[in-house]
């Protein structure tokens, strides 16, 4: 159990700065997810916490102890790797025991912890098998087990579900969350899948180009994205962005909507847009879309279209779309569903 603190952490490869000063406080028992596009530095950040990558600036503290130059083994963390990294020449039991044996844990204690972890993860029948005899999901559980038996101060997860199929991924996601809650161990989880990030995280950290874009609960990030990057990254399909200077070219904004001076970007989520009824009240935002694509995704439909000025706009209707390709549809959104960003892409208001 421990809190993890990053203070202006930096990492350079030669002249290239991969991590450009990251500060983050992770509370004891918190589940924090680092999310961002590939190559944004989120994995590097995790590996720096683990001690697998050195840092070139700043401080990393685990449980209040500065660990900048501490070996990975001495940091009291356990890591679950993307490819599981199970030792192929050892049985599942030996895999779980390895880290404990290296720490000179008494063998009775090792047996006790393995039995408990195997029970929790339902891997008891496989304890004497080799990893190659297990399926992807079972290997994933063993990798989790190897982390649990150590009873570390923190779990680090490096895209642990990306090698599983969609169904299993959904199951494991729920299990990881449940497990983390019951153990109450501080966890840092890296993923590029924003869906996974939203469902797992107590707090989300959106990383882009070696910097933190925004930190907050999934709901905060969804409702109040701080930048256009976060706005488009969180939520699926991503938020529609329209440039303020194009106003009147196919869309309009009620005059009482607060907006930054000068150039601005308007964001509105596809789920907040709906077709306007002919005799309803005039919404704060209005646009006329020429539909050029319809996706039926189960309970709802996504309609892709273009405005008069060529900007793309996606909106969502429940059930089947009543429109056909080529139709011009008038859609609108209320004032509280609008996101305003200034010329630099930062949230306004």
């Amino acid at each position: 159990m421990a809190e993890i603190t990053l203070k202006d952490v930096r990492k350079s490869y030669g002249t290239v700065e991969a991590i450009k000063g990251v500060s983050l406080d992770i509370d004891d028992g918190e589940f924090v997810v680092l999310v961002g596009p590939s190559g944004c530095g989120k994995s590097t950040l995790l590996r720096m916490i683990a001690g697998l990558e050195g840092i070139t600036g700043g401080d990393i503290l685990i449980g209040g102890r500065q660990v900048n130059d501490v070996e990975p083994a001495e940091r009291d963390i356990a890591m679950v790797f993307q490819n599981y990294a199970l030792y192929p020449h050892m049985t599942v039991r030996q895999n779980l025991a390895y880290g404990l044996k290296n720490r000179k844990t008494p063998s009775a204690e090792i047996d006790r912890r393995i039995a408990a972890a195997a029970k929790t993860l339902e891997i008891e029948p496989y304890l004497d098998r080799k990893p190659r005899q297990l399926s992807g999901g079972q290997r994933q559980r063993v990798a989790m087990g190897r982390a649990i038996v150590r009873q570390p101060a923190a779990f680090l997860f490096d895209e642990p579900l990306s090698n599983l199929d969609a169904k299993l991924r959904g199951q494991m996601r729920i299990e990881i969350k449940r497990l983390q809650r019951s153990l109450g161990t501080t966890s840092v989880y890296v993923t590029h899948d924003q869906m996974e990030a939203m469902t797992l995280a107590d707090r989300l950290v959106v990383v882009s180009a070696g910097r933190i874009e925004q930190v907050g609960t999934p709901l905060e990030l969804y409702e109040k994205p701080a930048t256009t990057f976060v706005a488009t990254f969180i939520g699926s399909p991503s938020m529609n962005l329209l440039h303020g200077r194009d106003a009147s070219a196919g869309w309009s904004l009620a005059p009482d909507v607060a907006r930054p001076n000068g150039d601005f970007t308007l964001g509105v989520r596809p789920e907040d847009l709906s077709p306007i009824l002919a005799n309803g009240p005039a919404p704060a935002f209005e646009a006329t879309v020429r539909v050029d694509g319809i996706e039926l995704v189960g309970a709802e439909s996504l309609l892709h279209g273009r405005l008069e000025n060529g900007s793309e706009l996606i909106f969502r209707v429940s059930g089947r779309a009543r429109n056909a390709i080529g139709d011009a549809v008038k859609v609108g959104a209320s004032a509280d569903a609008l996101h305003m960003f200034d010329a630099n892409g930062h949230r306004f208001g």
Partner: protein
Amino acid sequence: MQSVVFPNKVLPYLLLAPQIVLTVVFFFWPASQALYQSVLREDPFGLKSGFVGLANFRAILANPDYLHSLQVTVVFSLATALLSMALALLLATSADRVVRGRNVYRTLLIWPYAVAPAVAGMLWLFMFNPAMGTFAYILRRNGFVWDPLLNGNQAMWLVIVAAAWKQISYNFLFFVAGLQAIPKSLIEAASIDGARGTKRFWTIVFPLLAPTTFFLLVVNTVYAFFDTFGIIHAVTGGGPAKATETLVYKVYNDGFVNLDLGSSAAQSVILMIIVVALTAFQFRFVEKRVHYS
């Protein structure tokens, strides 16, 4: 396996012809000659030869010289294989840690493999020749009585070191490839699991290199058995007092120097059986047992 049908009946055989010719001329024909010769006995003047059944084999296996040679071969082969593999593994793990200029190191370490066995033998002979060798001089200066021309154990060490040195490059290449094939995340997992340095090497890296190690053990044994003739011929000539006379060297000595063709042929048949056994061992046992995924 997809079966492919060639429309042309002749072309496939033409394409295979070079390999078939080589195999027949340089393998099947000599091998059949050896089998044939091994059941014959020449008269002392080489004028006629008569069928003697398995008498040659009985004679060899009852001959203390042959059994001594067998013992020499086993000692020589195991020592050569283990020494060259141990050194190659040490170099490979060191080269794996080098970041700057690793390709230069690797290239330099591969060079000895290009040296012909006889030349490699000459190199070591010159370095350790009691009369003019630099190292022999250094050894004697330091009070070590060095004379491989008289001392059989020292002669054995010299051929072992020379034979092992030449094979280090080959083993090094395979070990480097083997080390590179170990996923980096396994090493990282082990380092988080608290295994460092030697412990990590013996509990994780070495077991994962097992397929490579077993393969090399067989290859090196075969090398030490059969491909070291040039080195032994150049360095010791099988001496002193047959102390370094391996089975292959004895085949040469008995057949081409002492002209006992029947016995020599029988010995080479036994060698042939050993090769077949080693290869079968590699395919049957090694390939199955030590692969992980």
